[in-house]
């Protein structure tokens, strides 16, 4: 997090951090969102360790409703939905974090540079952004996936990250462009601060919640693209994801058969994680913005 990197001798780092933490802990939205994300993250990390069989093993009776033994019931083929859910959460978090994170990194690097430098640098970066933007990303993903034949979450995340950054770069560029002309940026220049530091310490903190929001959207986007790939059969050959579960449930008409326990958990899982991140974002905005804080 970009928590106030106001590293000074007078207000030592611990004091600044403590203050941010103080306001963070008093913010209900931030805490609530964080709790939800942490619960799901814990389920994704710990859950699979407590289950002795794999998510796709046929372990129980087919189409069983939730019970004490199979908390989330079983699929049409007798697979444990809870096992699939926690393993699926794991790959969903992984694809979201890796794919969304890579896209955010590229988007920030391109957006900050283009917006701050302007001129020719901006034009060149803008051209590259536009090219990637109009590339039919899904088609590229399909072709690359099909030809390279590599089907792991890591590769999936890499392709998603490399193709989904352009809109983030554009948004960040626009924000940077408007912040660059503010006098406090000039004052930092007058204080002998170098460009990369000005971007990180003056400009980025002013759009920290914006950056976080961008990451959330990239995260969600990565999860959705991964689910689409899974649906077409280009997902990871091993394991499951929440997207794969949803699409399996749809494919085998879980809705029509009344097997709500098959599609509700993955759908709710995706919604809850992305929704909690969004609520956290609103809370973070209040923590970062001292004006909102006092109301």
């Amino acid at each position, binding site marked *: 997090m970009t928590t106030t990197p106001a590293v000074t001798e*007078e207000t030592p780092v611990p004091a600044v951090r403590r203050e941010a933490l103080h306001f963070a802990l008093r913010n209900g939205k931030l805490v609530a969102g964080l709790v939800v994300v942490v619960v799901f993250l814990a389920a994704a990390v710990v859950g699979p360790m407590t289950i002795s069989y794999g998510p796709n093993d046929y372990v129980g009776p087919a189409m069983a409703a939730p019970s004490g033994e199979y908390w989330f019931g079983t699929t049409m083929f007798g697979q444990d939905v809870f096992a699939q859910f926690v393993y699926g959460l794991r790959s969903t978090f992984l694809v979201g974090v890796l794919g969304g994170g890579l896209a955010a990194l590229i988007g920030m690097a391109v957006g900050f540079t283009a917006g701050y430098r302007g001129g020719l640098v901006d034009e060149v970066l803008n051209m590259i952004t536009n090219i990637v933007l109009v590339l039919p990303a899904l088609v590229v993903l399909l072709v690359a996936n099909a030809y390279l034949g590599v089907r792991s979450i890591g590769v999936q995340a890499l392709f998603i990250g490399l193709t989904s950054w352009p809109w983030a770069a554009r948004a960040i560029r626009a924000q940077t462009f408007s912040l660059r002309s503010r006098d406090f940026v000039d004052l930092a220049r007058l204080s002998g601060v170098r460009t990369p530091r000005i971007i990180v310490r003056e400009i980025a903190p002013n759009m920290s919640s914006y950056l976080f929001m961008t990451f959330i959207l990239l995260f969600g986007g990565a999860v959705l693209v991964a689910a689409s790939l899974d649906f077409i059969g280009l997902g990871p050959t091993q394991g499951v994801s929440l997207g794969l579960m949803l699409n399996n449930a749809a494919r085998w008409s879980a809705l029509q058969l009344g097997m709500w326990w098959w599609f509700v958990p993955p759908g709710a899982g995706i919604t809850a994680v992305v929704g909690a991140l969004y609520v956290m974002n609103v809370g973070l905005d209040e923590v970062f913005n001292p004006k909102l804080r006092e109301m």
Partner: protein
Amino acid sequence: MLRLDDVSKVYRAGAFGGRELRAVSGVSFDVNAGEVVSLIGESGSGKSTLGRMILRLTPVSSGAITFDGTDIRALRSPKAYYRQVQGVFQDPFSCYNPVFKADRVFAMIKDEYFPRVAAAEWRERVEGALRGVRLDPGQVLGRYPHQLSGGQLQRMLIARAVLLDIRLLVADEIISMLDASTRIDVLNLLADLRAGGLGILFVTHDLSLGTYVSDRTVVLRHGSVVETGPTDLVFANPLHPYTRSLLAAVPRLHARWDEEEADPGETPCPYHGSPEGARTRPGLAEAEPGHFAACSGCAEGAGAPRKLAKEKA
């Protein structure tokens, strides 16, 4: 120390940068050590643009700005330049990053220029500088910008500039935000600094107190110098109608309004009415030693703007 030589600035305006806007054209003047030069002109006349060019924040379109004989474009280290030349901007509110506490402007200077100074000693220096601009350190340190007034923020910026023992200060309308008593304190501070050898470019849009402390005056209009010279000469004997209208706009105790209302249209053009030999600078004629004025926009001025008679600001 600082020399501007035929400096111009052209902004690209319009949707595709098609239109050009000449914010500054052909401005030349010097600021020497221990000298206060006031730059006067109505808003939009290019004063801030000039200040920003001197501070290397905006590139010069043509001409050259030199500091100690070195073109500031060719400087190897801007950081070393800013150790000697600082500015205080017009709008104090936008000079502070709203996310951080206001005293971060001091911390930035310490990080960059005084990393080895002990924290306690630095704090002492900051508090000293703040008292110098009549601020109570306890009242402004540790607060956020939105918790402070424009005058307080403005004075903190002055204190910030003072912390770096600079040689040139660009002060862009720094007293317009202050109330009368603080104004005098700040002007006294500037006078002290000047006595210590600081050169000051004092930018203002009216003939406020500041002009009375200045050694030389540069009157700017639509981006060009219309009159310049030692302040006492310019004020005692304003040659250009624009300068006169600025002076007439200042209420004075000892003079009645109607005495100020001399029609500027009747006086001869300070440039074309002067002998050829007096036209020693491009577009400027020297009427008295060091006192220059430009064409008033008379009939002889080719393509010059119309008469200024009615333009009383």
